Structure formats: structure tokens, C-alpha cells
């Protein structure tokens, strides 16, 4: 790459991933050139803010604890035992990672709302509009962050570390509690912090369930302040965003410290694990437990969405009430549907292509940048991934406004937000691929007389193809049904699938079941895309 190209690349990266947050911070802190204490005082002493802070801490903290308790035994079953149907169960329990959490919230509202929830006849006391409900639905999604982290860490441990303990007379429990768990502490903690971060940044569940339950969370409070559409409102929401940003920063700092303190050199890469624990008679019990859990996490919510999508009138259980009425309404009588599908497809494809390209060039630049600058580059790429979506949305709005870019209320700004948020996925995957390519392969092409462009097309592209595909899918999937940022950035005519489902559910005719129809379509699409990705990359990517 030419020097000029490198500089342009790094400037673009800085403007997309770093500058907006700096700008957000300083534009709210200064009023006429002076540090504005008053607005901080107002933001951080208002009852609403304080309550939303404690609600967020309590709900998300409890979610992480519950998620950890579920993930550890699951991870053990999937990596250390001769559990039957292991691959199938693994996919089932990892899949919620790819499903947008607000769809789960909608499903659980159908299942357990206090007026006509589907589970009401069985469990009369059930009420999803409560702190318990909020924690439950969040846990049902964010445990996947811990589980996936644990699975990869458990697979990397040198098996002889555990075998040595067995030879020393340790029971399965002692091997697990004294050897295995201490060795995966860094991964466990970073999974827990990641789950916490995703939970505090989550908007969909907080809004759909929290609002109805009268539990205000930080993300929903930011949304309310911003929708006040006044300058003060914008300022308050900005400052609360900074608070959220601060929590995220603390979380990342903790992760950094802990992973440093407990860093052991474990064998990297998957290793064959010849001696699995024989579950014996407990095999049946394990299958039953997994079936029960999967019913709660998976089958009930999907069933509820399907029933809601097929019900002409919500709450009516007679057979004549079922039909494709809602599908017809949503797909032939609602203009917004096509606009939203079109917008989301355009945004998701755009973000996936641009992120992959950007990720490729950033990765190639790594070979020419000095080590320290390269580290800085990687940190920049990771920043928006760690920053809560609401904060990204606000920061980009303010930055583009200050540059007088005509992006306010356009799809352009949503595209920028997606790119910032998901660039980290693309970069990591493509960098993984680029670093696997031996330089001699490239040198050989040059010796054979290929120029840079020919090398790119004939050598890089074919080798990187699985990585580029994974990058495309892993940006496309979350972008296609994104809600948190879109809901703050959308304007008239700019609906996305996420915001349309949200509006239908929150403000629209709830009995229509329109939200359920779209949610069901998104679910089907995600399952198909995930399977495609898994097959296309031979199991390396995909759940």
C-alpha cells in the first residue's frame, strides 16, 4: 500500500470509530467555552437517572450471575462428556447469540403477559412485566456470550493437565473445580463482562418489557430524553450516554486487568481430547435436562411467535382463529413492510460489503504499520464494538450535524452506525485469514510476474474467500435486524425491519400480530443464513 493510502485509511478509521465519541464528550461538557457543571449535576442527580442506573445495575448484574450458572454446566457437558447429540445441542444452545434479543422479548410478551399470555392457563402467576421477567429474558440471550467463550477456552486446554489430575486421584468433580475452572477463569470472566456489557447496552428488551413494567433502564432513559427533541433533552441524553460509556470503559478495563493477571499459556488451537467422561446412566437425565432447557429458551418462544403470527385475533384459541390473515396484511396491505425490508437489505448488504473491504485494507495495512501504531489501529477498530449502540447513534448524529453533512434522518447515517458497530467482526475474521497466508505465496506470485492487482484477484481472493464470506454474513445478520441504533436514527420513510417490528409491537395494533409475522420471518432467515455460513466455511464460523 502507498503511504498516502495508509494515511487516508487511518484517518477514515479515526473519524468513524473514535472522533464521534470525543466530540460527544466535549460538546456536552462545555457551554460557551466553560465546563458546564450544572447540566452534569442535573443529569446525575435527577431521580429518573439514578433510578435507571440502579435498575440497570441490578437487572444486568443478576442476568450475568444467572447466565453463568447456566453456562458452566452446559459448557462442561458439551466439551468433557460423551453426551449424545452433542453437535445438535451445541448449535441449539449457541443459536440465541444470532437472534436479535427484542424478538425474544416479543415472544415472551406473547407467552407471559399478564392479560392473555399463552402460558397463563398453566402458570397463572406468571407476569413477564416485572424485574424477574426482564432478568429472565435477558439471561435467555446473554448467556450465549459466556457459553461461547467457555466452549472455546475449554477446547484449548491441554488434555494432559486434566489427565494428570485424574492420575493423582482426583474425582471428576475435583478435576473440574480444582483444575479446569481455574484454568478458564480469564475466559469465563471476559465472557461475563461481555454479557454484562451487552445487557446494559440492550435497548429492545429494556424497552418492550421494562417500559410496560414501569422499570426504567439507562438505554430507555436515553431514548426518552432524546425523543423529547429539545436541546436540553439532547444534552441530558448525551450525558447519560457518557455515563453508559463510562461503565463500558470500566468493564473493559477490568477485563484487561483480569486477563493479564490470570494469563496462563494454554495450548492454542483445538486439541484432540481422547478421554471423555462417560455419563453412563446419567446420559438420559442429561438429555432430559437439555430438552427442558431448550423448550424454555427456544421452543416456547418460537412457538409463541408462530401462534401469534397465525392468530387473527390474539388470545383467541379456537381453531377458526388461525390462518394466514396476518401474513397477507403485512405483505400485501402494508407499505411500510416493503420499505423496511428494502431499507434493511440495502443497509445490511452495504454495511457487510463496506466493512469487509475496510477490514481487508486495515488488515493489509498491519504489515506496513509499526507495531505500536498497529496496536492503536486494532484498539480503534474495537472501540465502537464496545460502545453501547445508543451512544454510537447519538455521537454520530451530533458529529454529522456539526460537519453540516446532510445525513440527519437519512439511511446514510444508519449505514455509518452499522459500519462503526460491526467493523470489528469483519476486521478480526479477515485479519485471521490474512495472517494465515504465508508471505512466500505472495512473493511467488510476484516472481511469476503478477502485478499487485493480479495478485489480489488470483491469490488473495481465492485464499480469503471463506473469511470474506464469514465476514459478510457476520455483519449482515446482526445489521439486518438491528434495533438499538436504528430506532434512534430512523426518520419518516426510513424504517428498518427492526424499527418496524418495534413500532408494530409497541404502538401498533397489538392484536394484529404483524410484529410476530415479521419476527418469524427474521428468525427463519437467521437460521438459514447461519446454516449456510456453517456449511460454506466447513464449521469454522457459524454456530
Amino acid at each position, binding site marked *: 500500500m502507498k503511504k498516502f493510502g495508509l494515511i487516508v485509511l487511518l484517518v477514515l478509521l479515526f473519524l468513524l470509530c473514535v472522533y464521534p465519541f470525543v466530540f460527544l464528550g466535549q460538546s456536552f461538557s462545555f457551554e460557551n467555552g466553560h465546563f458546564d457543571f450544572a447540566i452534569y449535576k442535573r443529569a446525575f442527580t435527577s431521580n429518573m437517572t439514578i433510578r435507571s442506573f440502579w435498575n440497570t445495575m441490578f437487572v444486568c448484574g443478576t442476568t450475568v450471575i444467572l447466565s453463568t450458572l447456566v453456562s458452566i454446566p452446559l459448557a462442561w457437558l458439551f466439551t468433557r462428556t460423551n453426551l449424545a447429540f452433542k453437535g445438535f445441542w451445541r448449535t441449539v444452545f449457541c443459536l440465541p447469540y444470532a437472534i436479535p434479543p427484542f424478538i425474544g422479548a416479543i415472544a415472551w410478551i406473547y407467552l407471559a403477559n399478564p392479560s392473555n399470555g399463552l402460558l397463563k392457563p398453566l402458570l397463572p402467576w406468571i407476569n413477564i412485566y416485572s424485574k424477574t421477567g426482564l432478568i429472565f429474558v435477558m439471561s435467555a440471550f446473554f448467556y450465549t456470550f459466556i457459553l461461547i467463550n467457555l466452549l472455546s477456552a475449554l477446547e484449548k486446554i491441554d488434555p494432559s493437565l486434566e*489427565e494428570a*489430575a*485424574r492420575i*493423582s486421584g482426583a474425582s471428576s468433580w475435583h478435576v473440574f473445580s*480444582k483444575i479446569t475452572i481455574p484454568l478458564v477463569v480469564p475466559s469465563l470472566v471476559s465472557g461475563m463482562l461481555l454479557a454484562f456489557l451487552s445487557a446494559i447496552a440492550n435497548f429492545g428488551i429494556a424497552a418492550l418489557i421494562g417500559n410496560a413494567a414501569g422499570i426504567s433502564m439507562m438505554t430507555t432513559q436515553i431514548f426518552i430524553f432524546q425523543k423529547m427533541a429539545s436541546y436540553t433533552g439532547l444534552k441530558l441524553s448525551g450525558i447519560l450516554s457518557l455515563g453508559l460509556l463510562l461503565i463500558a470503559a470500566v468493564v473493559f478495563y477490568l477485563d484487561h486487568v483480569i486477563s493479564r493477571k490470570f494469563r496462563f499459556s494454554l495450548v492454542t488451537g483445538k486439541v484432540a481430547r*481422547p478421554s471423555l467422561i462417560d455419563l453412563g446412566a446419567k446420559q438420559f437425565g442429561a438429555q432430559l435436562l437439555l430438552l427442558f432447557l431448550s423448550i424454555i429458551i427456544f421452543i416456547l418462544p418460537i412457538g409463541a411467535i408462530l401462534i401469534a403470527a397465525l392468530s387473527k385475533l390474539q388470545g383467541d384459541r379456537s381453531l377458526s382463529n388461525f390462518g394466514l390473515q396476518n401474513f397477507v396484511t403485512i405483505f400485501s396491505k402494508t407499505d411500510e413492510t416493503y420499505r423496511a425490508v428494502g431499507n434493511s437489505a440495502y443497509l445490511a448488504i452495504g454495511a457487510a460489503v463496506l466493512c469487509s473491504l475496510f477490514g481487508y485494507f486495515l488488515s493489509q495495512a498491519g504489515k506496513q504499520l509499526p507495531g505500536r501504531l498497529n496496536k492503536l489501529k486494532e484498539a480503534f477498530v474495537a472501540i465502537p464494538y464496545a460502545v453501547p449502540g445508543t451512544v454510537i447513534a447519538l455521537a454520530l448524529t451530533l458529529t454529522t450535524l456539526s460537519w453540516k453533512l446532510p445525513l440527519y434522518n437519512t439511511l446514510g447515517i444508519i449505514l455509518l452506525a452499522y459500519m462503526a458497530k460491526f467493523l470489528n467482526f469483519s476486521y478480526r475474521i479477515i485479519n485471521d485469514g490474512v495472517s494465515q497466508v504465508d508471505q512466500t505465496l505472495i512473493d511467488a506470485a510476484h516472481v511469476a510476474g503478477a502485478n499487485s492487482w493480479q495478485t489480489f484477484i488470483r491469490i488473495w481472493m481465492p485464499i480469503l474467500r471463506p473469511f470474506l464470506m464469514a465476514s459478510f454474513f457476520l455483519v449482515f445478520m446482526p445489521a439486518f435486524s438491528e434495533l438499538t441504533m436504528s430506532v434512534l436514527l430512523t426518520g419518516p420513510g426510513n424504517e428498518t425491519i427492526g424499527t418496524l417490528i418495534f413500532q408494530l409491537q409497541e404502538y401498533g395494533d397489538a392484536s394484529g400480530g404483524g410484529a410476530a409475522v415479521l419476527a418469524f420471518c427474521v428468525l427463519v432467515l437467521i437460521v438459514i443464513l447461519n446454516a449456510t455460513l456453517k456449511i460454506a466455511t466447513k464449521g469454522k464460523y457459524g454456530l
Partner: protein
Amino acid sequence: MSAVEFNNVSKDYQGNQILKNISFKINDGEFVSFLGPSGCGKTTSLRMVAGLEKNSSGEISIGNELISSPEKNIFLPTKDRKLGMVFQSYAIWPHMNIFENVAFPLRMMKTTESDIKSKVEEVLSLVELGGLSQRMPNTLSGGQQQRVALARGLVARPRVLLLDEPLSNLDAKLREKMRRDIRQIQQHFKITCIYVTHDQVEAFSMSDRIMIMEKGNILQFDTPTAIRANPANEFVREFIN
């Protein structure tokens, strides 16, 4: 009594027979090497003694105790076999200091704290690591880590000490010293040792008897002198040269 005996032991894995009906007996206090090229079944045999792998048929016993027999539905779990093992990768637990690593087998036996202390110190000085007990594993060299592994394998006075290519990650000079030291310690405890290696120099310099294996069969099981004087077949002759 800690003789080790295999009786018509086979191991099938994914349709391949990786051990073909082998029988042998290792006497109490004997140092035996399993020698052969990779894939010959030597490591599998060792891991079956440990119970880290199960034989598909036949009987394995230690002393007078039958520890594995699929036909009789007997399988003594690894943790109850009272063995010591030294792994190629050392397998020193990185989250415990040297003392705790070595003390682990004793803790599993619920030994008293004062006993643990004296036994660990004793075995550490035997492997020439006295004074390092509070160090963390990542501050030790490869050779020192392997001595920790040896100490951990010996501390609980196991019935048999299993060594799975323990020296192959060390450099040549260190290897020579370790060979002498391991042999000396074995004589000191008069412990039965099974030593897996693909290095014939190692096998010939340390063992009372050597079992040469190829493709899941035993080709020859005899003393080093006898094997040198009288190789069983062309493969053995080639291999030991």
C-alpha cells in the same frame, strides 16, 4: 505387588485395530520401555494402564488386581488406580505453585497437612528442586518443570510410574542427565516404571527390558543385551541401528 499384566488385549478405534491381541507381563520393580515408531500402539498401551483409554477386549491387571476387563464388565477409574504419570507436555498446572502441584495427589488422598509438607519437601529435594517450592511454574525452565512432574508422579508412592516420552521436549544435554536421574530415582524407590519412547538410545540406556512394537503388535520383549545380540526380525534390526 505392582506387576503389570496384559492378557490378549486389543483396542479398536473407528474401525481400525490399533492393538492386536497383545499379552505381556512387567515384573514388580522393573523398568520397561515401550519402544517403536509413532502409531505403533505404545502410547495407547500406556494410557490403557492409566485408564485414560479403555481396551476393547482382554484383561489388564496391576499386582493381583484386575483393573480392566470389558468381558467381565470391570473398569477401575483412573483416579482409583494409584499410579503416577509424567507427560510429554509436563502438564504442570499453571495456576498452582510448585508445592501445590506436587501436593495435589496427597490432598486427593486426604493426607494430613504436616505429612503433606514433609513428603513434598522430601520428594522435591530428591529431584533437586529443594527451595523452589513457592515458585510459579512459568518461572521454571523446561527441565525444572519436568522434574516437578516427576516429583508429582512419585510423591504418593504409586504402584507404577508411567512416563510418556518425558524427555522429548528437552535439549540433548539435559536429556542425558535426566536419563541418569530418572533411572537413579527408580532404583531408589524400587518402583515399577513403564517408559514410552521412540528414541532407541533412551530405551537401551535406561531399561531392564525393552518391548519393541510395530503396528499394534509386540515384535520383541527382552533385555537390551539380548535384543542387540539377537534381533527378532529385520524390522527390529533396522530400528535399533
